[in-house]
């Protein structure tokens, strides 16, 4: 309610001032046009051409798109890898984030230090330093193997690099991604603090145990936060690729060929800018569709305490 009166008053008090408005958003607006709108338009055009950067683009109509869908094994491999990755890492990352957030919900001695420690992987996880380290961690002589050998869980002959073995390469990248659950954890933590304590007290009086409280109070109260985290993690999952570029470079046998990595390789290793642009446009349309679906279906599973507050 108070928010509503505030906006009404604001509308009255703010006079239209075009010069000031465009002065303040000017840098952003210029950047938006020059570095976003123009490139998007360019890439749409290139997607209908053959272009190797050296010559000039030649128009080929829908040929790139037709080739992608009918005659490109690597495209389907890339889709497969990316979808598998997202389907495994998003639920795992969110589960860890929520679990740890639940641990840190009640203020206790040491919690702020613990929270910082658990967040460290998210701070460093995207760096080249961690990527090169990760490769050694799972290397033939790396930590995982040396530990498994030491406890006798692995025969010395079986030691091999986890990042270059086809069946485990994607797994090492998933572990790396799940490891960085810090941001959704902090968002869950902020959400948990907003749940009124009375709800839990009332439930406890009614005889609800901790598990019932978790599923009947925590999860529903948190549904909009879960939705936000789910959306953000899914989007970033479909787009992730630098760690794959650094650690596995798409290999072995395309087992970690993330979709965006495939775009990158097509564009910058094979100089097929037209084809890569077509791949990028398929991605763009898919992401738009996916985001739309997630938003549309959110009404069915996100519980808003007061419908009026949300638009």
């Amino acid at each position: 309610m108070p928010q509503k009166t505030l906006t009404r008053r604001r509308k009255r008090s703010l006079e239209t001032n075009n010069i000031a408005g465009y002065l303040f958003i000017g840098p952003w607006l210029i950047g938006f046009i020059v570095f976003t709108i123009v490139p998007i338009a360019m890439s749409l055009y290139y997607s209908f051409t053959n272009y190797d950067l050296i010559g000039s683009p030649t128009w080929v109509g829908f040929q790139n798109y037709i080739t992608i869908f009918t005659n490109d094994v690597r495209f389907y491999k890339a889709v497969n890898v990316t979808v598998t990755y997202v389907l495994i890492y998003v639920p795992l990352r969110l589960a860890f984030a929520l679990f740890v957030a639940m641990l840190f919900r009640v203020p206790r001695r040491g919690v702020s230090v613990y929270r910082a420690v658990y967040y460290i992987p998210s701070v460093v996880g995207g760096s080249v330093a961690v990527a090169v380290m990760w490769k050694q961690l799972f290397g033939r002589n790396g930590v995982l193997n040396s530990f498994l050998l030491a406890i006798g869980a692995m025969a010395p002959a079986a030691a091999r690099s986890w990042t270059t073995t086809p069946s485990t390469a994607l797994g090492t990248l998933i572990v790396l991604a799940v490891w960085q659950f810090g941001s959704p954890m902090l968002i869950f933590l902020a959400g948990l603090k907003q749940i009124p304590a009375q709800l839990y007290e009332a439930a406890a009086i009614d005889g609800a145990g901790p598990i019932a409280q978790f599923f009947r109070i925590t999860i529903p109260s948190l549904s909009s936060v879960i939705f936000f985290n789910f959306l953000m993690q899914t989007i970033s999952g479909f787009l992730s690729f630098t760690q794959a570029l650094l650690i596995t470079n798409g290999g072995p046998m395309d087992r970690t060929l993330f979709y965006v990595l495939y775009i990158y390789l097509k564009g910058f290793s094979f100089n097929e800018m037209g084809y890569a642009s077509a791949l990028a446009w398929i991605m763009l349309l898919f992401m738009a569709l996916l985001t739309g679906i997630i938003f549309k279906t959110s009404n069915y599973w996100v519980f808003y305490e007061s419908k009026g507050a949300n638009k």
Partner: protein
Amino acid sequence: MNRKTKRALTTFAYHFFVILFGFLMIYPVLWMMASSFKPHADIFTDAYSLIPRRVVFANYANGWRGFGNNTFGTFFANSFKLVIPATIGVVITSAMAAFGFARVRFRLSKLWFTCMIITMLLPMQVLMIPQYILFNKLGWTDTYLPIIVPAFCGQAFFIFLNMQFIQGIPIELDESATIDGCGRVGIFLRIMIPLIWPAMITSMIFSFYWRWEDYLSPLLYIRTAKKYPVSIALKLFSDPASVSDYGAMFAMSVLSLVPVFVIFVAFQRYLVEGIATTGLKG
């Protein structure tokens, strides 16, 4: 067993579990640090060990020497030359745009605001190819311009973060300042900036992290080894062509994370609040 001991046991179990799990979480980072002090021959004997049998600093000296004529001093300087201007630019222009969207009424503002929100969800990787072609045509390759110039156009995520802060500031402040004869620019500089600086610091931290750790943009645009930032230089260690001096690689990796840790320790509070605000109100 009375209530008191039961409680003490629960507390003990809690801390035991949290510390154990936390140790596993930062184990890889600790391992990297430990390995950077191990002699070359020791790194992969009992690799999992966190305690070097002999502590040596040779890895740091070897690593610092870098590649060719370029030491890691050059690479670090390059990273700062790239990250600092870009971060200053993005923090200022994002705060400006946020003020414009939140507090000034102008034509088409709704349309531009929607565009801004869409760019937050837009997969920027899709722009990788056309932006490369664009910057190539502008003759910006092998300079830091493709990284620095777009930063001076703000970033949707930071605009949004600043807007969240501005919306919490009572409009009456703007009104009374207007009555006192303060223009929009004056309101922004004298009233908004002193109040939204926590949001600006949060933007600064994230911008620093993202650009410091960025590997893709320099990979695409920087050709000359003399201009490489730290991220690219680190990758050279693990290229099959170069001599694999893992000790030196770990040593320089640890050094590359020093600025990241310093900022994390100094500004942790802003980081946590920044994520919580944008996350919750998103």
